[in-house]
């Protein structure tokens, strides 16, 4: 059975969605990526755009909670919020907040990559999960940092564009425009597709 064999193989994680959320909690950019679906052997987004919107929006609660906790404890200076929450066994959201309140959210599909393509990415890591019951490749703490770094770099490049007005995108009141830069979208796509666990630069 194709299905049972698929079940046996570890499907390493992939990025399912990248979200950039503005200072006023307004969505600036959402990139959705295909995940491998072993049951159909197809690549397609694991959720609908609306569901991803809901998912990204739900991370805002956690940003708020954590920010409050950080403020109280004086921690969280790096802006890396790490794991925000796992929605289920498959999808987990990681977050990062810049000094200006722009939030980057990475939604990882823990089994989004087809095993064969993943072998190259994980090979050097050398640690295939062997423990009983663990499925797929897990993530180390801070493994998402490289993604956030790449996203931030892309965002900074966007900000350097003189025609990009951040105030237009996050005005003091109400939601602003979304990011329309094709280059930024392209960069997000590169990040989302290029990431595999253990990769050190994007």
């Amino acid at each position, binding site marked *: *059975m194709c*299905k*049972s064999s698929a*079940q*046996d193989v570890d499907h390493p994680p992939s990025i399912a969605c990248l979200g950039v959320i503005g200072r*006023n*909690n*307004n*969505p600036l950019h959402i990139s959705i990526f295909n995940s491998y679906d072993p*049951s159909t052997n197809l690549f397609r987004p694991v959720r609908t*755009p*609306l569901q991803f*919107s*809901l*998912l990204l*929006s*739900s991370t*805002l*609660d*956690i940003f*708020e*909670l954590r920010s*409050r*906790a950080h403020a109280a404890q004086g921690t969280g200076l790096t802006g890396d919020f790490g*794991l*925000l*929450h*796992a*929605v*289920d*066994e498959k999808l*987990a959201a990681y977050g990062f907040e810049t000094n200006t309140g722009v939030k980057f959210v990475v939604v*990882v599909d*823990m089994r989004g990559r087809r095993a064969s393509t993943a072998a190259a990415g994980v090979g050097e890591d050398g*640690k295939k*999960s062997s*423990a*009983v*019951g*663990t*499925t*797929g*490749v*897990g*993530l*180390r*703490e801070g493994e998402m940092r490289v993604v956030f770094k790449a996203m931030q770099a892309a965002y900074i490049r966007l900000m350097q564009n003189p025609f990009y007005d951040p105030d237009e995108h996050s*005005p003091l*009141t*109400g*939601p*602003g425009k*979304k990011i329309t830069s094709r280059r930024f979208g392209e960069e997000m796509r590169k990040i989302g597709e290029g990431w595999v*666990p253990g990769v050190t630069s994007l």
Partner: protein
Amino acid sequence: MDEYPAGSLDHSVPFLLTLGTSGDPTYQSGLSAVLKEQAILIRSELPPLDSDQAHALLRYIQNRDASDLPCNGRDAPKKHRFHVKTAERSILLPPRRARLPDGIDMPSPTAVLHSPYSPLSPISPLYPDGLIGTQWIRKHQDLVPSVLLCFYTLTSDPTLATLNDNKIKTDVNNIRALLSQSGYKTRLAVVLLSDKTSASGDHVQDRLESLRRGCGIDAKSLFLVPPGDSKEELERMAENMLTTLYTASLDYYRDLGRHSRKKRGRGVAPQPTVPPTSGTSQTLSLAGWNVRYDFKSAVFAEYRQEMDVALRSYEQAYENLLSSELMEVIPSWSPRWNEARFLADVLAVRCLRCLLWNGQHSAAARRWQSHRERIADFLDRRGRGTGNYGWEAWESRWALLMANLMEKASIPELAPVTHKLYLQPEKNVMGERLQPWEFLHHTGYWYRLSAKHMQARRDFAHAIPEDDRRSPSMSPASFVAKSAFAYDTYMCPDPFEEYPLHRGGFDHGRFVVERLMKARSEFLKREQVRLAAEVSLECARELGLTEEWSGIVKLLRPLWKDLPFRSEGWTTIAELLSWNLRAAAVELDDAELVVTIDWELLNQTFQKRPNWEYDITKALDQIDTESKPIVSLADGQILPFIWTSFLFREEEGKAGQNVRSQLTIKSNAHQGSTPVSLTSLYLNFSGSLDRVVIEHDDAAAVQEKRGNTSISAVPLTRDDAEAEVTDLGATNKSVILQGAADLTLAPGQTLVFNLEIPLREPGETEAQSLVVNLDTEEFDLHHELKFHQTPKTNFWYLSGSATKRIARPNPLAIKVQPRPPKLEIKCPVWKDQYYTDEAIVLEFELTNGEDIEALAKLDATLFGENPPAFTVDIAGHESQTSSSSRSEESKLIGAPLGTIESSKTSSVQLRLPPVDRSSQYDLTLKVTYFLPTNPGTPITQTTAFQLNIVNPFEANYDLLPRVHPDPWPSLFDADGVRSAAPDDDVPLAFKGLSQSWCLLTRYASFASEPLRVVDIDVVLSSLPSVRCHAIKHNNLPSSGEGRLVAPKTIEEAAFELKAQKASLDERGPSPLDVSLVIKWSRPEVSDQLNSTTLPVPRFNLFGTEPRVLATVSHMFTPHPLVVLTVYIENASNHLLTFGLTMEPSDEFAFSGPKQTSLSLLPVQRRGVEYRLVPFDDLGGGGEVGGCWYYQKVLRVVPGGEGLGDEGGGGGLDSRTGRWRGDGKGSKGLERVMV
């Protein structure tokens, strides 16, 4: 956990059974009917205790029941944990050895009978090859106590004591005998409750000892409750008792555990009492037995709360169970297959509980997942796969189980107050690659997962083909046979029950909603409002399927209203909420909600729904309304599809004027939606501006239309009468400006209204909001839109295609300056200069330029150096005179002007008295007036004038000596000299020296215009001892009408002065003060004569110094002849001699002494006469030698007309024959003192 058989998953807690008192839940043996027959009855013969004390003790023990305590080992180890049951007098224990069922004979007398729960006993459901069942778990949990605690009364009555004690002994021995007969190792304990009166200590001790021995129980199992003790004492005693019993109880379970291990250690599979004859005749394999023994040891370890031991045993059992020897070989059609699955679940749950107990949260999450994976894998390989409703049912149950376990374990780190969503992994797995899900998330996530699988289960169920959904009684047998193997029905109904064809089957929705609501409440507890909203949406979808509309509205309406999805730009989410809510609202006939949602969904920010008719007027087509709903929307409540902006053209305006402004509304409605015909627009301002109301009028003219933009000018009319009617933006302004325009707004269209808004009161005014009103037959909608200041809105439509940016910081606001005064102050005949010594009359005209009459007052201020007091004359009012409070100010305040009619003029006359110095004043006139339309607001007009007052004339003066014609009095003439004695009646007779002078004045007009000089005069003032008078000689016409003197021309006037001293004795110098008085008038006002007095420097007359004066007289016939007379005056008291020389000259001939000396007596004047004849016409002037006096040359002063004023000599003008007063070259007359 409900779906699992009762007790199968429960935490194992030592079982304590009390006997001898009636407790609240009456004793239920819990044995099945079959076993009840064979059950062992243990019965106490003594009556049950009914004392309060006994009840209190029992209640306390029951309250300490630990079955429901949190399953965690974190809290300080409890002294005891008991599951407590009570029985009154008798209990039933399951038979230790099950009888063979009827019809089966003992195969051999040596055959061993086994426990009814063992697969060895034919009556057991496990017979012959089952593993272990729930019954076994329940046997230890509910049926066979670890400790049997018997209650007895210790009678204090000495007469009955022994009897009772013996009864107790008998009873206990009886019970113990029964127990040991049963084969159970249940510990027996006795508690004695003393009755009322207390016995002496020793006696009681003896009795207890005797009882203990008599009953054959050890000291630790015998307890005495002293009588009448306080509650605390009782509780303390009970606590001690339970702790002691707990040790005994743990012993009991340890023995049992040891027994299981011993059996496992034997390593042989026991044979059943009767070899199986039915089925496969297969008996339980050794591996199966090992699982069974491991499970038992684990459970006993759990009883002892040795969770590590338990976990190891459970894991071992689990691994063995799933090994190739056991589950792999069970055929999936066999009932044992599901039993094995069930056992695997139970083992996994118990493992999870052990992990949670030990605080290994990540390990628990991982264990949870691994069980799921293994079962899925197992089903995929050996079973019916995971793509069916049965699997999803299990998945849902499995997630729910985890949530329940976590709840039971009550992990404090995940309590809502911590606001933690998940736990950090334990230290030992910290560095590993972890799945995010292995961070143990709080139960909300698990409930949600469970709900999700429940939904998946339903999806699978709905995909069951109809044939399978038919009841088997109605289906052909072949179908039944087929479907029996096609569906995984582990712990879930058959397909014809799951989703029957013609009736309701399993209610998935109910479970989904229930779990989602649980999840939602967990999320809400941790302030995950957005995630809770997402869950609510899922919930609403579920409720929608079951048409529980009010539930949806209740759930979604707060989210729709309060959550910031809209304001934060998550439009897709807001849209989803709206559509869901609308669907429910339509069903509930909530017209208000439907209208609001439809109104918002017109916004094309939202996705257009295909095949949806976007027409707001038809919103309520499917809805029955009792009354016409009125929907009022505040700003920010929804995302409006109407975008509006407002601009004032100017930054400032003045009250009373109109200001140009532009109102723009733009529709962002979906393309293709029906144009909205607004009923009216209310434009509200802060400050003093009136509300502007624009009503819809189809016929209103559009000024310009280009593309989607149409511009129209809306003339506004005032409507004072209209009272406030709407509730939105209610102000108490009663004045409304009304206009009409076409308010039909098609999608994408922009309507621009040019408004001329009259400004009323000064101050800052800002456009605040626009209320859009849509009144249809079915509903009224009022939507308030606030104006927001963004750079994008600052565009002024010049035409349909051209806009102009208004580069002002806030074009929504206008500064209204006070109303400009329209009353003018004018002075028609204002002159640049006014003159001193002139009474100045200033005429002012006040012209009322207002539309209506004005009640006015005048303030006048004259400011300068010592301003004169002035008088103001106002027609019809009394004159008023100014007062001066300070030296530099003279003012008049509040002179009433009365009412000035519109466009009428009132005149004011301001009179100043003549000013004697040239000066400058500032004259300020301030008119304050009120209009009857606005009596509270004073309007002020101020005009300032500069008043220049100058001297019209200036003059210089020469005082020339003349020879007085009268002879000097002689000292020798006594009469002529001596003055009469002073007498009052007779005026003083002047008999002193006389002198004659000529005062020559040259005056010039410094006026800016010709002035009419009417008269010139001098005013003399001298000492009383001198008499003096003047005779004027000027060129003014004698008629008295004067002469116009042009500015800047010099005019001359001469005065002949005659002065005489009163007495000859007095000849010293005497001053004379003269002032020149010019009488003049302005040529246009001849009747007003002003006189300007010019002070002349002081002159000195007389003196004792001698002086020489010369006079000439001409004679022209027959020859030109000049007679020069030189007078020498000696006013001193000395005799003086003067030398006099006449220089000969080429120009004239003379007769007279050429050189002579003259002696003058004191007070004498003598004259020497020369006759001069000029030689020719060309000759220059002659010269008159000089006059000496004390070696000093005296100047010869001209003493009359025709002499040069240089003195010291003179000459004759040969051409004219006149004497020329040119002293140059002439020689002075010399006088030598003798």
